[in-house]
């Protein structure tokens, strides 16, 4: 049976861990000692009491909203810019897409140096132009740290969403636009009445990927800001890591994991429902 290896793999490495995380979340489970028996609902109750939890939730949501809006608007603009077949447009597409091929961890390390007062290139340029006197504290304040991380993420992912939207744009038949023009529709009208509605599946895909990805943000903050300053850029997934390997409490890390899973399921189901209903109506 050719599906057997995959079935065994999925049972062992997906179903079993899912059951295990449920059990762990209901148990006292120190990192090095292993399971010490059930303690429901201590781990879950502990989450809400954690002084960092609600700020982390708040930050993760704020980050998600900003990143999703900025990313979708920018990549939509880029997709519209490069969708036409002109000479040399391939160069632009390649340039926009290159950062996508990098890993997020590499990109974060790159920007960590890029923003650093030691070797970063922006401060010298600004100072040379006489715009500023002192180094910009790119990750020194909570707002700047958020801003700088958003630049990094947009740089890394805009090309990816551009590609999805571009494919969507190119799949809209030209005849539709021509018919609209014959009927006297302006460019603006045909964008809002034709392009956007027909692009809905592509936009939905971008939305789901970017919302999920941002809610689970980890690499960029772990590497670039290390959750700081003052834990202001600590995300929910970073809390899981911290519980497990800084506080050596796998039980509470598991409880957090379960909460993240449930919240994400609810959000994804809501998104699917909303987008599907829109598509039918």
């Amino acid at each position, binding site marked *: 049976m050719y599906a057997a290896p995959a079935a065994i793999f999925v049972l062992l490495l*997906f179903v079993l861990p899912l059951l295990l995380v449920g059990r762990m979340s209901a148990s006292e489970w120190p990192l090095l000692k292993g399971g010490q028996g059930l303690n429901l609902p201590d781990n879950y109750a502990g989450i809400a009491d954690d002084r960092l939890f609600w700020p982390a939730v708040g930050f993760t949501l704020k980050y998600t909203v900003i990143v999703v809006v900025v990313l979708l608007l920018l990549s939509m603009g880029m997709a519209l810019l490069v969708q036409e077949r002109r000479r040399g*447009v391939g160069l632009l597409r390649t340039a926009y897409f290159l950062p996508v091929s990098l890993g997020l961890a590499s990109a974060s390390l790159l920007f960590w140096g890029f923003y650093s007062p030691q070797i970063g290139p922006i401060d010298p340029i600004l100072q040379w132009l006489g715009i500023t006197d002192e180094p910009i504290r790119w990750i020194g304040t909570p707002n700047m740290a958020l801003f700088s991380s958003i630049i990094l993420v947009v740089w890394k992912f805009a090309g990816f969403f551009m590609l999805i939207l571009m494919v969507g744009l190119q799949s809209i038949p030209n005849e539709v636009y021509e018919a609209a023009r014959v009927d006297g529709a302006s460019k603006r009208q045909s964008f809002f009445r034709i392009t956007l509605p027909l692009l809905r599946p592509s936009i939905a895909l971008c939305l789901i990927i970017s919302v999920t990805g941002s809610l689970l943000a980890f690499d960029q903050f772990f590497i670039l800001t290390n959750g700081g300053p003052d834990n202001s850029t600590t995300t929910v997934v970073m809390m899981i890591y911290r519980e*497990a390997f800084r506080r050596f409490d796998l039980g509470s890390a598991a409880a957090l994991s379960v909460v993240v899973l449930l919240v994400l399921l609810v959000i994804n189901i809501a998104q699917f429902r909303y987008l599907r209903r829109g598509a039918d109506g």
Partner: protein
Amino acid sequence: MRLQQAIGRTSFWVFGGGLAIMFLVPLIWTTVASVSPHGATAQQDGYGLNNYRTLTEYDAGLPTYLWNSAYVSILTVVFTLGLSLLGGYAFARFRFPGRDALFLLIIAILMVPYATLLVPLWVLMGELGLRNSLTGLALVLTLYQLPFSMFMMRISFEAVPREIEESALVDGCGTFGVLRRVLVFAVWPGMITVGLFAFLHAWNDFIAPLFMINDSSRYPLSLAIATLRQQTMGAVDFGATQAGVVIMALPCLLLFVLLQRHYVRGFMSGALKG
């Protein structure tokens, strides 16, 4: 009218080109910075490769980390291709009990956040003796490649006309013989896409090794470079970090340039799903 067109074209290039430069600047900067002289790095004066030399000698040494990354990435590719080639064949061509349920279960991996599974997988891998092991890490990375690659291989097999294999079956090939002698060549492009994405994901991943590997001589590159950076609070080596970024990025950029077509196919199939 012609003037208007010229203005349109110029503004397209000014705007699009400007944006392109903004996207390229960080990549160019890191390459230049990794060889430039700077007080905060090992490259004190003149351009040169001292930062790369620092990296070569750091802790277990760059060759070890490169080997670790390559080993994990290649093993992930092998696992992913093996599972999805056989599985895709099964899903596309055979009816068996639980077929739809199994496929749904595999796709459902997408719904479960990475981090949710890493905590129990850490415990489970400990039980299996695969914690802190590169093979264990490759298994974990394979898990997250499975939904995409199974989907990709399934549609690749479904796109192959049945006549091709029927004649081979008539000639007395078993179903495995058909797969090995005929179908593998028909689904080859899908396999390249699956392998490419598995490799890039394994090469670049950070959070899975961070959870799974605690012996620094077994760190893959991403983790080694991130750790090098934080090692001593007093003397952070900015130059070696950027040299590391360049080394991490090179295979990715190379694969992108060589396999652009397969890249785009991967994303397209993603777009089809939506």
